[in-house]
Each structure stands twice: as structure tokens, then as C-alpha cells.
């Protein structure tokens, strides 16, 4: 199994650190991080990662809008929402914007590993 190149998007330092630690431990490579929606779009253009973990609540552009913009430009992008938002309506909006799945915080290693594996299967 090859390592995935991952872009981690979250405005929380502790969450970025946690996701990076888990992904690295799982054998993947975090190739970039961003703390805003605009930063996520910009980083995606430069890095074209295999996978993005995307927070929803962020300053300026939120994660749903950033997902929509990335998918518009890169229709094959694989984006997973990693969020505390438990409301169905917002999760539906995320999937409608092009996200391939979501993970609710608090983040647990097993849950993140499972959703990464699903994404890996989809990537082939």
C-alpha cells in the first residue's frame, strides 16, 4: 500500500497536530496544512494532494465553500470533512459540495484510519 499525500485544513493548531500525528503514524505524508478556506484552495492548487481533510468552521471562507471551489477546479479531488458540526443539514451541504465523506470530532485514530482506507479504496 502506498502512502497518501494529504493536505490538512483546520484553523485549530491542536487539531492539525493531532491529525498530522495520526496520519504520519499510519504511514501517510502530510504535504501541507492550511487554516482558512482560501488557504485550502490555494494550497490544493500548489500541492494537488491525494486527499484533503477539511474542517468546516474557519475564518473567511468556510470548509463547505472551499470544498465547492476545489471540486469545481479539480473534479477528481478527494475531500473528507473532519468537523464538529453534527447537524445533518450541514453535512448534506458538504456532500453536495463534493466531499466524499465526513468524520465527526473528537478525532479518534480508528475512525480516521477507517475513513482514510475508504478513500484509498476509492482512489485505487
Amino acid at each position, binding site marked *: 500500500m502506498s502512502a497518501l499525500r494529504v493536505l490538512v485544513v483546520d484553523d485549530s493548531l491542536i487539531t492539525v497536530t493531532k491529525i498530522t500525528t495520526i496520519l504520519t503514524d499510519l504511514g501517510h505524508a502530510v504535504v501541507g496544512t492550511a487554516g482558512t478556506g482560501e488557504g485550502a484552495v490555494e494550497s490544493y492548487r500548489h500541492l494537488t494532494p491525494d486527499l484533503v481533510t477539511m474542517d468546516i*468552521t474557519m475564518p473567511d471562507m468556510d470548509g463547505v465553500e472551499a470544498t465547492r471551489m476545489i471540486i469545481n477546479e479539480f473534479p477528481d479531488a478527494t475531500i473528507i470533512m473532519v468537523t464538529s458540526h453534527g447537524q445533518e443539514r450541514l453535512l448534506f451541504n458538504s456532500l453536495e459540495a463534493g466531499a466524499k465523506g465526513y468524520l465527526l470530532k473528537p478525532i479518534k485514530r480508528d475512525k480516521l484510519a477507517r475513513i482514510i482506507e475508504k478513500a484509498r479504496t476509492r482512489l485505487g
Partner: protein
Amino acid sequence: MYGRKAPGFSSEGGFGDALIQHLFDSILSRTRQVLSEEAGITVRDGTVASRAADIRRPHAVTVLATLGAPVSALVAFSFEEPLLESLVEGMTGPLIMDGDDVGPYREDCAAEAVNMALGLGTADLPSGGMAISLSPPVVLDNTQWAHRNRDAFIATMRVITDKGVLDVSVADARDPLDAPINSKV
């Protein structure tokens, strides 16, 4: 769900008792979940007080966030120092080497805990089919106070944990707060 509910707890206008009770039920339940899962902290009790003169901010770190329509509530979480230390230790413990400085993570851990408690709680609240927005959490510094405007309504809940106290204040986001809070947040 609460240990006690103070008599005379009432409000004016649309930000009524039912919504406030619903909001506090959700906050208490989700705070219990987040503190337990992130740091092994046990919530023992949540006590709702009557309206307050100002948003309670007596503790080490205070985090402010806003829930959008149709809830439209400004929520402030104020963490007592021992509780904050336990939270930071729990959240950073598996990630940071012994001896490393956790200073940069102190406010961030509090903000992320609030983000999780309120974010998960959006699933508990009446939405009328709308997606309830949640603002990024803002950490208040020691110069900022949220004073109640003349007609604004503020309700408070004290959450007792095995590591310290957390005070939660809720105000109608449509009742503007006076300076300096609006000038800096």
C-alpha cells in the same frame, strides 16, 4: 438534566425559556462528551442561574462563539485554571513530548473544545430545516469584557467538573453588546 434550576429564570422576546433550556441541555451534554473523550474529565453537575449583569468571565481563559439563525445565540465559555490545565494536558498529552512547551496550545485547546461542544450540539437544536452556522471561536484577552446592554438578556450555567469549574453564558446574538466587545471581536 440539571442539578438545579434557579427560580425566576425567564426572558423577554423571542429568546425564550424553551430555547435557553434546550441550549443549556445541549451544551451540558456535549461538554460532558468532549471533556470526557478529549481529556478524561468528568462533568458532575450543571447549574443554571438567573439572568446576569454581564457575561461571566472570571476565569483563566474565556472563549466566545456565535450560533447562527434560527438559534442566534452568543455563547461564552470561561475555564477555571485547573480545568484548563487538565484539558490541555489531556488534549496534548499523546501529541507532545515531555518537556515541550504547551503554551501555544493553551488557548487553542479551549477554543477547540468549545468548537466541538457547540458544533456537535447543532444536531440537538431546533433548526427549522436550516443549517445552523457556527462562528470560529474567539479567545478573549484580559482587557475585554462583555457588558450587558440595557435590554440584553444573559443566562448563565455553572458546570462543575472533577478538575474545576466552567462558566457558560448565553445571550441573544441579536442584542448587541456594548464596547469593547464589539470593537475587538
